């Protein structure tokens, strides 16, 4: 059994607070976490909701995050007035409007630090989106953010499992819980495939799901302003404890 959590990343502190830290290294680290969590929703939002082509959306994504760094944008966030994600999305709208109004878009990559973001990857994901269905702006932004959070957490879980010799457990989890299309295999089929008992399949799935939830919640905690927001976000993500 794998009850110990000591091999998993320590619980993260709120990066929203860390953005305002005196230590520039702490600020930079917090900013990196924010970008990692939000750049995909931002890019897809610009592509699908703001009608930008891929070049324009790349520039605007880079520019938006760069402006956040330059203008101490995040320090203006007031947790009492809006959810961070909603506030960020509105800030993005304002940024795009300002850029268009100026009508002289700054050529990014010069004076503004260039962020290493895999736009090709995000562009490839757009084929899966049904723009007509993604009607609500906030819902779209939220869903993309959740998707990013889950993808990041799965990747992290995979890495940890590889490092700790739990690849079979992860593969069982992957083949059952991460199945994208087609039919989900039965427990018996999975047991046959991996040459383990059916009870091992059940327990692996339980263990991996628990770890996955822990990983997601760790990321989520980092992206929330306070415990209250974290409670609300985790409840929205996984439902209330039964």
């Amino acid at each position: 059994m794998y009850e110990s959590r000591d091999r998993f990343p320590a619980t993260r502190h709120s990066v929203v607070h860390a953005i305002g830290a005196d230590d520039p290294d702490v600020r930079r680290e917090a900013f990196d976490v924010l970008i990692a969590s939000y750049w995909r929703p931002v890019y897809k939002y610009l592509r699908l909701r703001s009608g930008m082509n891929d070049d324009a959306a790349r520039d605007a994504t880079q520019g938006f995050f760069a402006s956040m760094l330059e203008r101490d944008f995040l320090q203006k966030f007031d947790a009492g007035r809006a959810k961070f994600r909603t506030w960020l999305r509105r800030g993005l709208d304002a940024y795009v409007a300002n850029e268009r109004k100026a009508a002289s878009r700054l050529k990014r990559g010069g004076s503004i630090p260039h962020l290493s973001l895999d736009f090709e990857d995000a562009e490839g994901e757009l084929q899966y989106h049904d723009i007509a269905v993604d009607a609500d702006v906030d819902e779209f932004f939220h869903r993309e953010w959740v998707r990013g959070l889950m993808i990041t957490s799965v990747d992290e879980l995979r890495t940890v499992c590889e490092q700790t010799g739990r690849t079979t457990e992860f593969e069982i989890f992957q083949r059952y819980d991460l199945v994208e299309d087609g039919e989900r295999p039965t427990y018996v089929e999975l047991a046959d495939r991996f040459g383990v008992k059916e009870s091992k399949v059940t327990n692996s799935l339980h263990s991996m799901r628990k770890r996955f939830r822990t990983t997601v919640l760790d990321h989520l905690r980092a992206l929330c302003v306070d415990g209250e927001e974290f409670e609300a976000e985790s409840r929205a993500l996984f439902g209330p404890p039964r």
Partner: protein
Amino acid sequence: MNWMSDDAMDHLRRVSGHDESDDSYGPRYDVQDEIARGGMGTVFRAYDRKLDRVVALKVLHEAQAGASAQARMMQEARILAQLEHPGIVPVHDVGALDDGRVFYAMKLVQGNRLDHYVRDRPSLRERLRIFERICEAVAFAHANDVIHRDLKPGNIMVGPFGEVLVMDWGVAKILGTDEAATMVLEPGSPPAAAGEPGSTHVGTVLGTPGYMAPEQAEGRVDLVDRRADVFALGKILGELIDEASTSPPRRLVALQRKASATRPEDRYSGVEQMVNDISRFLENESVSAYREQWHERAGRFVWRYRAPIALILAYLAVRALVLFFAGS
């Protein structure tokens, strides 16, 4: 990982969204060894994290996870929940796995199956005491309008202190409900242990050859009632008697034959009458299944009152000696 579909995301949120207080299968139970595999489901030993105890989980077979099999499993759990008796295994919880298979959690029974228990060669009296308890549990179910329909040594557990638990109520039936619906399984759903002697036969008729009453084996669902269980109990009693003695008492043989008579109307009308005869036999009294000759009755009388008779005889012998010596 580059992409996760909405469906995969929603699934992941659903299955990962339970905490320790959740009562669904995954988080609550730590499934361990397989204990038994039957025609309908597999029984696993499992640790119940919520209540910190070891339980048994009966999980429906993959191949039979159709609606009717699930309904039967749920019915079994409900029947067990209604039959609160020391001789019937208590059910703690019901639920479903992610793939839809229904399970229920029950007490993990310690002990031996009846057919294993007799290998330790208990005396006939000990066997009959155990058999009495089996009958009491079945009689309780009958009083609640439930018939087991698959009584056999493999479905009866005997604990270390002689306690008895009647198991596997998977083909049990509540009298007065639609029998055809509960008797017949979907074609092409073979049992896990097909062909194994003593295994529950699953196909068109539920039960175990050798213990099934003729009317049950013929699929005469309209004729199957409490006396089908009486028949199975008679067969079980026959095995217990045969293994205990080469020349069992006639009253007991008659009792066993009456229980396992071919025609339902020739059997005991209920388990209560049968267990009453067993108790009377153990008390060395007459049984309803056997008409005694006068000398048998006298012999039983003598045996039953052997202690006072011996005292009276001793007293008479002493008196006779006293009179003899006094006279001489």
